[in-house]
């Protein structure tokens, strides 16, 4: 039976330690910065630089034609609708923020303890493997989600400030919020559990991060298929994806507990 007070004790310690080691946030912060910047370059900077409007492009008009029927963009002019389409589709990139953040923190979380020789005293307490892994996963996930929420706020504020009036409202649809606040955390959980699984078996943080990076590929793929219009993240699709990711996460947690071999960590890690 898991003891939540032990999980909280280690979680509090991990969060306090993380607060004092902000360098761990650099990968996630860089990812967030470029994820936010990219759609603004496409929708605002390039048109302003070349002196053309997005709506002058027939390609954009065709791409957005079906999208324009959605209630969230009904009041927008052509330029605003195209901007809304770009900003909404590029939201998928924001999912990379918690993924990158979780991976760097999680890989450090187990391997860092071992490298600092703090893991053995921890394993000598009544804490079980499940409790230890749960605390480690939450300690990586929660800060990354906080960073994602902050980035979403910045994104919305940027859109409100620089895009056509009313475009920001398109970011408050069920799909947009589902992508950021449901798929994002679940994908991050997936990545960090992979990282924790791997980090309990390897001895350097880079190996763990490289395996966890596998999660980035499907997210990048999702962005591409969205932009080509072959696959659209509607609320039902998001719900199915969330269920699938939830199942994967449960599986990874079970595998993680199995793989986290206390003995191997103590006796083979040098």
């Amino acid at each position, binding site marked *: 039976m898991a*003891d939540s*007070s*032990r999980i*909280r*004790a*280690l979680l*509090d*310690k991990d969060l*306090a*330690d993380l607060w*004092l*080691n902000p360098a761990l946030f650099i990968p996630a912060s860089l990812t967030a910065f470029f994820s936010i910047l990219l759609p603004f370059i496409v929708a605002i900077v390039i048109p302003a630089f070349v002196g053309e409007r997005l709506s002058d492009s027939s390609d954009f008009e065709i791409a957005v034609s079906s999208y324009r029927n959605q209630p969230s963009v009904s009041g927008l002019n052509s330029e605003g609708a195209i901007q809304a389409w770009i900003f909404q589709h590029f939201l998928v990139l924001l999912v990379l923020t918690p993924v990158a953040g979780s991976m760097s923190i999680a890989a450090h979380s187990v391997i860092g303890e071992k490298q*600092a*020789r*703090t*893991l*053995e*005293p*921890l*394993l*000598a*307490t*009544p*804490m*079980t493997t499940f409790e230890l892994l749960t605390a480690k996963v939450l300690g990586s996930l929660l800060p990354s989600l906080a960073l994602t929420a902050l980035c979403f706020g910045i994104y919305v504020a940027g859109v409100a400030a620089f895009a056509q009036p009313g475009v920001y409202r398109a970011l408050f649809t069920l799909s947009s919020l589902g992508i950021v606040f449901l798929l994002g955390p679940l994908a991050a959980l997936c990545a960090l559990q992979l990282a924790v699984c791997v980090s309990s078996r390897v001895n350097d943080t880079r190996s763990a991060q490289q395996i966890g990076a596998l999660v980035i590929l499907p997210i990048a793929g999702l962005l591409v298929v969205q932009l080509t219009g072959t696959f659209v993240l509607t609320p039902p699709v998001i719900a199915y994806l969330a269920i699938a990711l939830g199942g994967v996460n449960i599986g990874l947690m079970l595998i993680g507990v199995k793989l986290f071999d*206390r*003995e191997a960590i*103590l*006796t083979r890690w040098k």
Partner: protein
Amino acid sequence: MLMASHLTRRFGSRLAVDDVSFALAPGEVFALLGPNGAGKTTTLRMLAGLIEPSSGSVRVGSDTMSPHSASRLRGQIGFLTETPGLWERLDVRRNLLVYARLHGLAKPGHAVTEMLDAFGILDRAGDTAGQLSKGLKQRVALARTLLHKPGVVLLDEPTAGLDPGSAREVRDLVLRLRDRQHVVVLSTHNMDEVERVASRVAVLRTRLIALDTPAALRARLFGTRLRIVLGQPASPFASILAEQGFNDVRTQESTLSIAVDRRPSSAPLVVRCLVEAGADVYSVIAEKPRLEEIYLRLLEGDVPQARDTNADHG
């Protein structure tokens, strides 16, 4: 209180610990000696419930260590690992507070303050662990080990790398633990430390090659000898003593070293012989080979496996 029965541990084909048995009572300080790689840390880890024995068992009180009971029993054991293992960025109080909560102490903050005070580091509570000297880190680690008042305390090389003052503090602590009826198992290379604190000594080289009190080991390996300093050259008196049945007599200038065959009561007889023969006896002391000599002789020799008979009776 703590019993190891036929503990054996293999890592692949390598045998790290072979059939080690002993039983320890409250108030006992048990020293594990052995060369590097002898299996001391592996034995401690098995006792602490960190790794499972390949065969054999560990009992803490009336409970046998198993994957099911290990989590609970770890709460009754304090394990000081080879390195302090403190979170360097966190302050001393926070380091201990995490463990107080992991052990489920009712008033973790109070328990931490009490322990910091007991170890004389209350004034350093706000310092980050990374700022502390090695001796202070070890003190914090010891405070962490004893925070939950465990009945069994396992110390893996507690004075390694410490200055003499800090090492002495650790030894004093071990003696206090003994007086409070804790079971203390001490793994160390420091013979002086063992000499001062251990009630029993086990010499381990994958298997136990000796297990007894330091005095009994000394007597077993070296017998009992008297060292007598005379006021004149000693050699003429060797033959006189030989006539009295003391056959193993060594002389060096004015000093005699006489094997009294485990009979310290022979001292008056020896002195009387010498005085009657005209010797001026300046001093008589029982020769006490250093534990290091005992240890080295044990490791050199082909000694049969030792076993604590108490462990077999459980």
